[in-house]
């Protein structure tokens, strides 16, 4: 039996316009409100306008994307591997692990080479950032961050500092000191502050500026000394996962990749997005400029890596195989750009012939996902970091000059 009584206000001040009028008792998402009939009508039409604007924007976006495709297609007269038909095939070679760096207590998430071609900085889920001498495998520096999941780390061009960040939304710079009396963490400088996790960071061509990418959907350029925000880059519709700076000869641009499946090329001075590419079918985990700066490669959760040419403004090659079903987490080019190394979530590293589009080698060895991979500055070796807590430095051994296609 119903024994509750509701007091319905039928006449009184309207919750919206305040005028004393006959009221309509309605509920918006379980909250009772009392609007006069005029305000109820206005609210209903506002909603309608909102939907119309959304629909018209969607249509405009669709038609612009189609137009863009048309314009790009007009210049698409050939595939990269066709142009490379007459190029000599690569000799058969095997990749061998030369050094294994052990010391992290948990998943290795990121690594970077020092310009001296022998030192490496790596960061891990356990909050530790370690600087190694890759020739001797000695640990030269170690610092524990106040947060876990240190997803980004970078070596300063001078070799005198490292930057890192992760779940605390910050990017901090640590000067490297060999003075045994100095605590590395004591001289830490907090540089960047995002509103979500830091996914990637990189110094520009000096120790003075840092570029960051974040789960808050933005990238940002910071002055290291003052911590001041110099420029911010908005355009991604979801988390930004990676970035790479153009080789210094080609000017002030960088490329970023995100969970919105887009790769975007930015002008660092104006903050504007110059070009964008949306051909991947899932998150883009890694982007890397091609050595000449005229193209870049990307690795994605859709298990493919792709090459985009900036002057043709389109994707020009896909590196994939039906047998490869796990996401590519990290990509980098060899010195000449002939080889593309890619680390995958199925624990392997695949080596691709950039011109012919074929795979030339597979490297096994890691016992869990490969999360990060970089070729050394002089191209003699590459380092891979994994969820198996280790980093491996590997190089190639030429076996024979026969054509290998795997």
């Amino acid at each position, binding site marked *: 039996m119903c024994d509750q009584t509701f007091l319905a206000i039928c006449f009184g001040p309207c919750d919206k316009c305040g005028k004393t009028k006959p009221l309509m008792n309605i509920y918006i998402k379980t909250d009772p409100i009392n609007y006069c009939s005029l305000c109820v009508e206005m609210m209903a039409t506002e909603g309608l306008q909102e939907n119309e604007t*959304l629909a018209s924007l969607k249509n405009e976006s669709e038609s612009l994307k189609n137009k863009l495709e048309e314009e790009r297609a007009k210049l698409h007269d050939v595939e990269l591997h066709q142009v490379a038909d007459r190029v000599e095939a690569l000799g058969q070679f095997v990749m061998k692990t030369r050094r294994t760096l052990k010391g992290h207590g948990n998943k290795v998430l990121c690594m970077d080479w020092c310009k001296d071609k022998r030192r490496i900085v790596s960061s891990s889920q356990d909050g530790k950032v370690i600087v190694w001498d890759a020739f001797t495998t000695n640990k030269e520096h170690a610092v524990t961050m106040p947060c876990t999941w240190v997803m980004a780390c970078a070596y300063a061009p001078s070799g005198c500092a490292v930057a890192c960040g992760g779940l605390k939304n910050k990017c901090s710079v640590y000067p490297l000191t060999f003075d045994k009396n100095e605590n590395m963490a004591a001289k830490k400088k907090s540089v960047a502050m995002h509103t979500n996790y830091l996914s990637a960071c990189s110094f520009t061509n000096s120790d003075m500026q840092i570029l960051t990418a974040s789960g808050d959907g933005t990238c940002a350029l910071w002055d290291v000394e003052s911590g001041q925000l110099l420029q911010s880059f908005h355009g991604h519709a979801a988390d930004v996962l990676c970035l790479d700076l153009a080789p210094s000869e080609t000017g002030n641009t960088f490329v970023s990749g995100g969970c919105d499946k887009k790769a975007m090329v930015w002008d660092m001075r104006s903050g504007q997005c110059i070009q964008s590419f949306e051909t991947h079918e899932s998150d883009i985990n890694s982007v890397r400029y091609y050595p000449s700066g005229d193209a870049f490669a990307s690795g994605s959760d859709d298990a493919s890596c792709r090459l985009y040419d900036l002057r043709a403004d*389109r994707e020009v090659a896909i590196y994939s195989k039906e047998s490869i079903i796990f996401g590519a987490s990290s990509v980098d080019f060899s010195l000449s750009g002939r080889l593309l190394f890619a680390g995958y979530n199925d624990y392997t590293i695949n080596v691709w012939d950039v011109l012919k589009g074929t795979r030339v080698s597979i490297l096994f060895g890691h016992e869990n996902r490969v999360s990060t991979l970089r070729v050394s500055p002089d191209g003699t070796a590459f380092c891979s970091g994994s969820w198996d807590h280790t980093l491996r430095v590997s190089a190639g051994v030429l076996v024979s000059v026969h054509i290998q296609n795997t």
Partner: protein
Amino acid sequence: MPVINIEDLTEKDKLKMEVDQLKKEVKLERAMVSKCCEEIKDYIEAGTAEDPLVKGIPEDKNPFKEKGGCIIA
């Protein structure tokens, strides 16, 4: 602090951002794919001879060669 967090933007804001960007991109000047690919191929061929990971390096010149034992003469 950066001006926005993507989670605070409405669907409409994100679409507006995308439409503005697409309008700019439609006007870009593009080069023929064949020309660009030729240039990529030429660049690579010029550098391949010097690429240690493609050509391989002799073991004694390799900075990452296996660490050998000591020989006491």
